[in-house]
C-alpha cells in the first residue's frame, strides 16, 4: 500500500508547518472545496451524510466510465473545519483508481499532524468521512 501522491503531498505540507499555520492551510483547503456539480445538487437523495462529523456534511463518491474516482462533498460555510476535511479528501481522491483508494490507510487523517491543531476528537470526523467514501466506492465497484 502506497499513499497516493496527492495525499502524500498534502501530508508533507501540513507536517512542514507549525501548529498555527496548519490551521491556515486547513482553511485554504476549506475555501477550495468546489460547489457540488449540478447533477448532485439537484439530487440530495444521492448524498450520504457523514454522521461522524459534528456539522452537516454530505458526500458522494463517483466511479466514472474510465474507472476513475471522483468524490463530491458539501458542507455549510459555518463549518470550515469539516469543509477542510472534505476538501483534502476530494482533492486527494480525484482521478485515482478504486484500488488506489482502497489502499489509503484508514488512519491517514491521524497522520496529518492535526490532532494538536484541531484536536483528536475533531479529526475523527475526517476518519469517518474516509471510511464512508471507501464504503461507497465498494458499492460502486460491486455495481459496475
Amino acid at each position, binding site marked *: 500500500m502506497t499513499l497516493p501522491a496527492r495525499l502524500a503531498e498534502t501530508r508533507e505540507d501540513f507536517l512542514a508547518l507549525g501548529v498555527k499555520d496548519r*490551521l*491556515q492551510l*486547513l*482553511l485554504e483547503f*476549506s475555501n477550495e472545496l468546489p460547489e457540488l456539480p449540478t447533477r448532485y445538487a439537484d439530487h440530495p437523495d444521492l448524498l450520504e*451524510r457523514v*454522521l*461522524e*462529523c*459534528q*456539522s*452537516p456534511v454530505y458526500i458522494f463518491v463517483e466511479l466514472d466510465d474510465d474507472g476513475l474516482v471522483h468524490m463530491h462533498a458539501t458542507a455549510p*460555510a*459555518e*463549518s*470550515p*473545519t*469539516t469543509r*477542510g476535511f472534505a476538501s483534502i479528501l476530494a482533492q486527494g481522491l480525484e482521478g485515482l483508481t478504486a484500488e488506489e483508494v482502497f489502499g489509503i490507510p484508514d488512519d491517514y487523517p491521524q497522520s496529518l499532524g492535526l490532532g*494538536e*491543531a*484541531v*484536536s483528536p*476528537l*475533531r479529526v*475523527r*470526523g475526517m476518519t*469517518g468521512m474516509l471510511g464512508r467514501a471507501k464504503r461507497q466506492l465498494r458499492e460502486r465497484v460491486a455495481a459496475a
Partner: protein
Amino acid sequence: MSAEFDSAAKFAEYAHPERLVSTDWLAEHLGRPGLVVVESDEDVLLYETGHIPGAVKIDWHTELNDPVVRDYLNGEQFAALLGSKGIARDTTVVIYGDKNNWWAAYALWVFTLFGHDDVRLLDGGRDLWIAEGRPITTDAPEVTPVEYPVVERDDAVVRAFKDDVLAHFGKPLIDVRSPEEYTGERTHMPAYPEEGALRGGHIPTAASVPWARAAAPDGTFKTREELDAIYRGEVGLAAGDDVIAYCRIGERSSHTWFVLTHLLGFENVRNYDGSWTEWGSAVRVPIATGHERGEAPAR
C-alpha cells in the same frame, strides 16, 4: 476598570444582569480600553473565517484543556493563556460563539473556575451579530500581552466530579442532553459522533431539560419569566437548592449552569464536566433508562 453594565430592560429581570451584554452594547463598546472580546466556537476554524473586529480566539479543545490529562489548565497555564490574549485580571471579558453560545458558556465557566471576576456573554452570540449585519473581519487583532496572575483553580464551587454526583442523590440533577440520549437510545447527540460511552441512559433521578429549551429561536436567552416557568415551574427547583447539571462532555451543561446561576440566581449550581462520557463508562455506577427519572440507589 470594568466596563459599564448593559442596562437593557430584558437583562434587568435576570438575577445577574451584569453577566450579559447585547449586540447593541458590544457594538458601542468595541475597542474600549479594559474590554477584551473572546470568540469561542465548536468549529476551530470559524474564527479564522471572520470574527468581531478586535476579538481574540480561545479554543476549548486546544487551549482550555490540559494536553495530557483530562482536566483543565492549571493556574500557570491559565495565566499564560490569558496574558497572551491581552486579558488582565481586571479586564472585562465578553465571550461569544457559535451554536447558541455553548462553547462561549463553557469558556465562561472555565474562567469562573479561576475566579475571573468580570466575564460576560454576548446574548445571541456569533449568529445574532452576523444576522444583524454587524461587521466582521479576518484581520488578526493587535494584541499586547499582559501579565495575568497565577491563580489556583477552584474546583469546589462550580465543578462536580463523579464522587460528588454519587453523594448528591436526593438533590436535583439536571440532564441537559437530547431526549434520545436521556432515555438511552443513543449515547451522543443526534447527528454527532459517537464519543465512546459504554452504556446509554441517564443518572437516576435526573430531570431531563434539554439545554436548548433555555434559548430563543434567535439564539438569545429566553426571558426570565419563560426560564422560571421551565426550571422552577416544570422541574420544581426552589431557592437554596443544590443542583448539578451534566451533559455528554460538559459543554451544553455549561449553558444550563449559566442560566441557573446567572439568569435565575441559584447559588449552588455545579457543572459535572465528566458528564456522560465518564458516567456512561464508569464501572458500577447506577444508570436509569427510559423516560422515567428513576430511583436514587439505596445507600
